[in-house]
């Protein structure tokens, strides 16, 4: 078979328009008779709330202020419908949307935000996922904060640890990370032939369509989502941000409505990478063969689950790293807290665990007095290896070649000697 694209260097189709400044990102869209929207967001991590919009509503140029009362179905979310389109009775994290002001100019909308009175009644909040797992911890969603538990069991770790000559036990923590895609969220919505059209940069237009239709309680075919140029995403555009607000605003005003988030708002509006706390115990015999690994992984998903289940499952599946270990026990949890919510970000849970499993490898190698590269070569996946989840790797596993290439490259540099 002759391959026409694979293996060839192909010029990007959208490169030309982007280089000429002609590519259209949502903020580049303008329409006649267009209104501007601005979102009021929570400044408290956990509180009962009440709004008074009467002063802001009367301002000249303010057309409509949307709150939870305007939303036919106030719930959405990719796996669980645990987000509210607008907070109704309480906020669960800083940045939760409370209201959406629609006005004749951006300036008026911004001014009107200041005129909305928000009454907060602080609730006990929880920011540490380990604390959040306790029965007496403040509840983020009126139920257990533990969203998900993944268990992986292979062989008998307790017996295997007794046969180990060296064991390393450590705890690792990774931090929250923002995608910081360069194009802040923006969108424009309008009505066309009784259809609500939402133009927004998204990674998930078909699902956005579904969530908009559900929230507005209109048939799916009455919602159209157009995805113009997307200025980076990296997972951060998998959850809804302003799409429902815009669709509802155009539905209730009958006019096109546009919104652009500032960088600051972008930071509080979209998901983060899950910070993980990883307790690891790994053991090997004196020949350098890994015999057992036990890990407890706790992922802080913040106030909303987003993709937490898939992500913490993936962390658990990848917990051994690319090494064959005959006895494995992994417990991986996703936990609600009042922190900013975490969701998809490049690697989807597989990015955090190497911090732990690779440091364990280095420390075991040191204790065994084996070169850390050699130690990896003894244990790494090859064709025919079985992973901790029982998958037999039958296809391309070029890890040995990769490690050897890295070793060669390190030896050629002056700083990189091992």
């Amino acid at each position, binding site marked *: 078979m002759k391959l026409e694209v694979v293996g060839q260097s192909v*010029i990007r189709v959208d*490169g*030309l328009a982007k*280089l000429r*400044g002609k590519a259209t990102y949502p903020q580049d869209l303008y329409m006649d008779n267009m209104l501007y929207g601005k979102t009021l967001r929570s400044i408290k991590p956990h509180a009962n709330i009440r709004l008074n919009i009467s002063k802001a509503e009367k301002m000249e140029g303010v057309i409509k202020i949307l709150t939870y009362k305007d939303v036919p179905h106030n719930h959405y979310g990719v796996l669980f419908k645990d987000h509210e389109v607008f907070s109704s009775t309480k906020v669960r994290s800083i940045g939760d949307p409370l209201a959406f002001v629609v006005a004749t100019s951006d300036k008026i909308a911004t001014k009107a935000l200041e005129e909305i009175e928000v009454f907060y009644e602080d609730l006990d909040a929880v920011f540490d996922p380990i604390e959040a797992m306790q029965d007496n911890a403040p509840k983020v969603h009126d139920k257990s904060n533990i969203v998900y538990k993944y268990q992986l069991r292979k062989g008998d770790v307790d017996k295997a640890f007794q046969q180990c000559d060296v064991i390393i036990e450590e705890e690792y923590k990774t931090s929250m990370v923002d*995608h910081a895609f360069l194009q802040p969220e923006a969108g424009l919505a309008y009505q066309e032939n009784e259809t609500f059209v939402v133009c927004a940069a998204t990674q998930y237009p078909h699902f956005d369509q579904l969530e908009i239709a559900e929230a507005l309680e209109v048939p799916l075919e009455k919602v159209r989502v157009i995805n113009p140029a997307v200025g*980076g995403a990296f997972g951060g555009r998998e959850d809804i941000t302003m799409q429902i607000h815009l669709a509802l605003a155009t539905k209730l005003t009958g006019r096109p409505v546009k919104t652009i988030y500032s960088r600051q708002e972008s930071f509080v509006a979209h998901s983060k990478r899950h910070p993980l706390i990883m307790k690891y115990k790994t053991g090997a015999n004196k020949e350098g063969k890994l015999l057992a690994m036990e890990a407890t992984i706790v992922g802080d998903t913040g106030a909303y689950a987003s993709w937490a289940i898939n992500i913490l499952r993936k962390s658990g599946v990848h917990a051994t790293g690319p090494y064959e270990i005959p006895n494995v026990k992994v417990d991986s949890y996703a936990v609600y807290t009042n922190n900013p919510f975490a969701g998809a970000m490049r690697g989807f849970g597989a990015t955090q665990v190497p911090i732990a499993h690779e440091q364990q490898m280095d420390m075991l190698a040191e204790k065994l007095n084996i070169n850390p590269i050699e130690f990896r070569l003894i244990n790494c996946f090859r064709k025919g290896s079985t992973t901790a989840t029982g998958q037999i790797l039958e296809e391309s596993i070029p890890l040995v070649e990769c490690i050897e290439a890295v070793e060669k490259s390190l030896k050629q540099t002056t700083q990189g000697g091992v």
Partner: protein
Amino acid sequence: MKKISLKINGKEYNVEIEKDMRLLDLLRDQLHLTGTKEGCGEGECGACTVIMDGVTVNSCMVLAFQADGSEIITIEGLDKGDKLHPIQKAFLDEGAVQCGFCIPGMVLSAKALLDKKPSPSRKEIREGISGNLCRCTGYNKIVDAIDKASQYLKEEGEEK
């Protein structure tokens, strides 16, 4: 309201502006030159970079009235119809464009650098684009592209 006149991409403009309007808003909202992007609004990311009297500026940090009497080059002023500017061509050939949001600013920073220094070292290229953030590429392909643009510009000079 205030009246100013300025030259953008070789064309004279006489415009009425709000006193607190940024150069970025004048370009985007009033003149619809939307190739200039806003990434942060505080001079950190460089997506709004334009060339003002031969020097790169963050157009989010310049008030429109400050541009009175100046000459501005935006991304829309680089290509001549169908013919790409050599810097644009080099970015395309090297695969330096991904999401594209940093690209207008990146190309203009490259132009300002190459106008002053036709054969920059890779270190000088990195310094030249140090005010422009990119979250997709990891910069290597952008540096390669500017290196190639320097060659293209020289070849073009020789042809003339």
